[in-house]
């Protein structure tokens, strides 16, 4: 099961959280709303993954597609606090070439300041 939550929105930032399993079912359940929220705001986006237990290739693809869209608007995506195995999956694809990964909220904000 997957859960998508909007944590906060400001003029400069969108902060979302994904929890549970971003497997095939999970992507089917949240992809439209996820993309709609990010694409509508076109702001740099923090995605809290600290409670995400699993991500498959479709989930990785979902993140990449939205991150590419943000780059077109000179905005970036930061993944916050991914669990060890989720982070290993993300780095096995090389997402760090496009998407920032932060240990905690302070580091996320620091990475965004540098962009």
């Amino acid at each position: 099961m997957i859960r998508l939550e909007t944590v906060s929105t400001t003029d400069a930032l969108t902060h979302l959280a994904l929890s549970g399993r971003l497997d095939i079912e999970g992507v089917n359940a949240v992809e439209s709303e996820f993309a709609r929220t990010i694409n509508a705001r076109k702001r740099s986006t923090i995605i809290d993954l600290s409670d995400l237990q699993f991500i498959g290739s479709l989930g990785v693809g979902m993140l990449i597609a939205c991150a590419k869209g943000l780059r077109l608007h000179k905005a970036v995506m930061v993944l916050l606090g991914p669990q060890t195995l989720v982070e290993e999956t993300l780095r096995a694809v090389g997402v760090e070439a496009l998407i920032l990964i932060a240990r905690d909220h302070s580091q996320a904000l620091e990475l965004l300041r540098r962009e």
Partner: protein
Amino acid sequence: MGRELRLTLRNELAELARHGEAVRQFLEENGAPPRVIYVIDLALEEMLSNVVKYAHPQGGVHEIELALQFEPGRLIVTIADDGAPFDPRGFPRYDTSTLLGERSRGQLGIHLVRRLVDEMSYSRQAGRNRVQLAMRL
């Protein structure tokens, strides 16, 4: 509590979710490390969904056989289907440096399996694909 699990799945995506929990539970009950459980969970999602989506272009109901077996020092996972020939080892390599360019999502799945499992082998006999994955324990 056995050391082998055998399942037969229909070639439908809903079957993956239905049996995924049984696989995870089997692995946990038999003391598989968390990373092994995660990697096999991921590998099965990718490999089985590929069979469901691509193995039978003409459609129809088909069965996929799944077996998980603990051997000394290794977990062996075998996936067998009667679909079109497909050797995942021969799938084009995913180039992570082209992440920013056009990319087929389909390539990501096989890439992840290749990167994360310890061993992968393939054979085809009597019209059946047989992929075997192994993880060191």
